[in-house]
């Protein structure tokens, strides 16, 4: 068996469990042991993955909720495996029931982007790219046929699709044509490389002499994306040769964790001043100057903007029912956003 298959499967298991339990940790698994067991039983057979599509699993095994818990306590029946085989197993489109009825006719498309960037020690932008995912949350009856087109598909560097996407239209006209599964799913993921703009700058300065090291980090907005940048954090790992730390900032809070990770959470950048972290590091005795330098990892979130510039042109729906609500959203987060010092 290829190793990647194992890894991929484990990731899927983790995804499904997170979807069922709303998180993944030891306690949750202990509490919902039966469900976990049932899920694994369905997902794996004789060492080979069986059913891993989340919404089919959902039909087979009901997700935990209070009603089912109460029911199981009262009746003493602990199984929540449904007795009927999901229709999808027999339907021509394996990820969708053939006769789905849905009360709300709505479909949402989310663009979630992560910005990866590396700034070298000289402050040069070495690498900047966006990894994005198109999430679709659909509650549509029947067998709808959706077509999603982008305004500027040419900027996409790499793409990866959910199995429901048809390949021919993409090859020909760069549009996504698909019959969506019910509920939320990841339609596609893409990458846009060689971007030039980064939303915020981080300027670290470390100067050391005779056993001391002055640290000062400046954070500010470089290219205003037009929306508010939230949840800005800066964290860095202090070199092991640093003995003690004394840092403070004029905005936000600074925590130095036990493993010498310095965590500075800024939140939003205020209008009147630019946030500044400064402090003093005391090096180990015998070491005169700092010869290793930490890497600053930056985190942020911008709601309402896709930094890659990707724009959704339109979403067409065939076989469509009467009323329909369509919604679009975009978010950008920081991925591997690193500033070297």
């Amino acid at each position, binding site marked *: *068996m*290829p*190793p*990647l*298959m194992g*890894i*991929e*499967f*484990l*990731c899927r298991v983790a995804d499904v469990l997170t979807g069922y339990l709303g998180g993944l940790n030891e306690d949750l698994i202990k509490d919902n042991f039966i469900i976990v067991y049932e899920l694994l039983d369905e997902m794996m*057979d*004789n060492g*080979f*993955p*069986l059913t*891993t599509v989340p919404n089919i699993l959902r039909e087979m095994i009901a997700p935990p909720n209070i009603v089912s818990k109460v029911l199981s306590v009262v009746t003493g029946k602990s199984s929540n495996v449904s007795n009927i*085989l999901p229709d999808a*197993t*027999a339907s021509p489109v*394996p990820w969708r029931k053939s006769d789905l009825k849905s009360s709300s006719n709505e479909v949402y498309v989310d663009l979630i982007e992560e910005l990866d960037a*590396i700034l*070298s*020690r000289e402050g040069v932008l*070495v*690498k900047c790219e966006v*990894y994005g995912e198109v999430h679709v949350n659909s509650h549509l009856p029947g067998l709808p046929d959706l077509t999603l087109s982008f305004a500027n598909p040419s900027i996409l*560097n*790499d*793409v*990866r*699709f*959910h*199995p429901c996407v048809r*390949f021919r239209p*993409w090859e020909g006209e760069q549009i996504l044509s698909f019959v969506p599964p019910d509920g939320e799913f*990841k339609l596609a*993921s893409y*990458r846009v*490389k060689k971007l030039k703009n980064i939303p915020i700058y981080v300027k670290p300065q470390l100067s050391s002499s005779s056993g001391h090291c002055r640290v000062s980090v400046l954070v500010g907005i470089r290219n205003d994306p037009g929306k508010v940048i939230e949840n800005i954090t800066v964290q860095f*790992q202090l*070199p*092991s*040769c640093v003995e003690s730390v004394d840092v403070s900032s004029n905005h936000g809070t600074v925590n130095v964790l036990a493993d010498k990770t310095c965590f500075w959470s800024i939140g939003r950048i205020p209008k009147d001043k630019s946030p500044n972290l400064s402090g003093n590091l005391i090096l*180990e005795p*015998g*070491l*005169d100057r700092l*010869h*290793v*330098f*930490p*890497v600053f*990892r930056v985190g942020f979130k911008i709601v309402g903007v896709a930094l890659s510039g990707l724009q959704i042109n339109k979403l067409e729906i065939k076989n469509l029912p009467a009323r329909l609500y369509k919604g679009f959203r975009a978010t950008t987060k920081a991925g*591997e956003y*690193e500033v*070297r010092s």
Partner: protein
Amino acid sequence: MAGIHLHVVAPLVLAAIRKCARDPSSYVRKCAVNALSKLLDLLPEENNDIEELVNIFMSDHSLGVVGASAVAFKTVCLKNLSLISKHFRRFCESLPDIEEWGQITLIEILLRYVIARHGLVRESIMFTSNATESFHSKWGSTGLFHTFDNHNSYIENVPHDFKGNSLMSKNYIEGWEECLLQHGFTNGNVGEDQYHLNYVAPASIENDDVRILLQCTLPLLWSQNSAVVLAAVGVHWIMAPNEKVQRIVKPILFLLRSFPDSKYVVLCNIQVFAKVLPSLFAPHYEDFFVHSSEIYQIRALKLEILSAIVTDASSQFILDEFQDYIKDPDRRFVADTVAAIGICAQRLPSVVDVCLEGLLGLASQESSTSNAFQKDGEACILVQAIMSIKSIIKHSPARHEKVIARLARNLDVIKEPAARALIIWIVGEYCSIGLIMPNIIPNVLKFLAWSFSSEILETKHQILNTAIKVVLSARNEDMLMFEKILNYILQLAKYDIDYDIRDRARMAEKLLSPCNAEDISRKMQNGGTAGEILENIFRGIKHPSRLPDHDFRFYLPGSLSHVVLHAAPGYDPLPKPCSLHDNLPNGIADEDATSGSFDSGSSIDDSGSYNDSDPSVTSSVESDGNELASDSHVSNNPSSSSITNIDEDRKENSHCHPSESSFVYDQSVAENLTTSISSDLADLMSRTALESWLDENSGLPSATKPSESSSIRISVNDLSFTVSPKLHTLLDPANGNGLKVEYSFLAEASKHSPFLVCIELLLSNCSNELLTAITVEDEEPNKSAASSMQVLEKPESLSTTDEGSTIIPIEEITRLEPGQTIKRTLQVQFQHHLLPLKVAVFCNGRRYVVKLWPDIGYFIRPISMNGNSFVEKESELKGMFECTKRCSFEGHIEDLKHEEQKQSSLGTDKILVVSRSLASKVLSHANVFLVSIDMPVSFSDDDASGLRLRFSSEISRSSKPCLISIVAEGKCSEPLNISVKINCEETVFGLNLLNRFVAFLH
């Protein structure tokens, strides 16, 4: 149901599956297919039926079933690729639509099928055409072949690229053991290419099947499942024409962004691709820049890839990036970066100066930090930096003499002993090159001599060597001073505390002593022996260092073996190209391949062993090896003979390094040895091998045999044994009024019940009178023999153990003449395997109560199995089911003496005698089946260590297997130490049996 893993229900399940195969619901059919592969474990004998079912399922049209049947096909009958041919087109077309897990398996199967059917594609990367060739030579790098073989590059520059790729494809196909062998003769043999081409008749891209496969896997490159993408990439890598391989680059790079956990696996694959075809990834160097959150292993891989794909255009960026890495807190990673810089500089001549400058700066900077602050990490960076410098200047020392000078100047700053030793080596090596070096050498040498006594061992060695090198290469005017310094160092060294230094110093002094100051050089020109030796030792031509051999191993992309770089269990190389034809019976090609590889292995073993012996033996053994190989596979003959050619060539090249000359295939021999131990080479070799081995042994005087003992084992199953069952006395003639009754246990099983043991009674009349009416019965005369139930109820029975004992009585012997002996077979059921049974013997109307002692060795019955299944069973009965005991064995000594008396000592082999006597001892005391005798192949005649006998049996009562193995240790002529091991599910029984074995062996 199939998941229950019960043997009892397996046939039922098979029937159920057969029924389900025609079920209208595709989901039911899918589940039925899934059950098939589980059944295979349970019902290996029903293989054909299952295969047939798989075939039925494969013709199913439902998408879900197709995926599942691909999985079943893979587990059930991967070799039987011809089944695919009917469905191939349909499979390809449905490939994009089936579920993703099935896709992975189906892709693999289809790839195997296409290769087996049509061979490799001519335009593919495996048959690299001139396009890439010229590409490599354009930027004149040592790009590819430095990963393969430096030696080659001097001989022929043209086909190296091709060779690398064909080597890789060969690896994919044949698995690495065989390939290592072939690589052995690739070295000297250019004809290898033709050889390769001959047996791979490549298909062209125009072939429909190939085209369809490629077309249908193309959309999978966009799949969300990373494993699917990688499988599709593998297909394109192997099959796609050269210009289209480009298509795999982006998807596989994008995989890096999928899950952090899969990064390592993906990078491993990229690494191999990038090494073979750097141009593919060269424009995408940005993707391999290191993030701070990544773990060390991933970073190291990325560095390796970066240094492999660097080009003139990207060198600037990559080197800048490397400079950033040098300040990283992870010092191990920094050391790797330094090494990577060295590799970059070797690959791109244009950046050598920049790199050297940087490295020198780093070295001096690091030396200051590491002095102030002793840390392992810093030291290893420094050493690595100097190593990189060394490898860079190796290519053109004359150009870089300034660098050497600067390094030498750093000597008083750098304190790290390993780094110092390296610098001193560099100085010594290049002491006579250029203009600057001869000028600074005297000072450097003085400095070294002065600091000699305070140095670490490693550095002292280098100082000593350097001093001698300098003297050897010095010009006349400086000679006197150098001599003095050398003498000074030698004096110091001779009284060093370390014995190694003292020895070296003495040796050097002895070698130098005949040469006076002036005439060393003259002597050398005259070719005096001492001088020549000196020259060879200290100035010998440096052989290009060989890269670790895992660079030569390639596994199928995406496989686990690829990641761990050795053949993981279950790894299966691609089938032989074109091995599948419609009229060809399946599997023959495969068998050929395996037997070929094994035999070539053995021939190498033989020819490899002469290496240490003298040349006269060589030819005979080697011809032996060829004989072995000749009947198996045509292609193996060139392999063994060409290896000898290489060997001779190399011996001429370097007199002074005999061990090095054989290095290449020494390695391969070593590999082969290990494989031959693990695999059942022993079984394959069997009779013929044994004969040849024996001939060899007797034919050669023992003095010329190589002294090292290798670990090949030979197993024999068909020695002749003298089985003499042991007689026990039941009734003494003294007690029995002249009736003597003896009994022995019979090997045959009772016809009536498995609980009965057959005993042969020998009744003889030792008296002078006639004996009449002799019977043997159970001790309780009034009970009927057959009704054991009654016995159980008897309260007055004497011992609890014989309650259940029953005897099927012998028919009465009416007359027994004096001196007459009659044989009778008695069938007895012992209730317990240790406690005796009381038996009454009636004779002349009198009743003698005697005890019949059971022999546990006959409570088992032999089952025949081969060595493999024995080992398999044994591994199932580990832990508490296993018991071992040791004892000594002397029975063979007598046999040995016998043999010696009978024949001259040369005729037979002692080990054979020993094993025979051991086996017959066991066989005459227990009812077992001799599975195999593994004999050690050791070259001392007397050494029986490693002799292993395996017996198999099952307990007659419960039919549970009971495995016995005996391992001997020690010399043939002395009592052997023997350890007996019994694997048996009934532990009590096993222990008792063990005791019995030890008792009779002792």
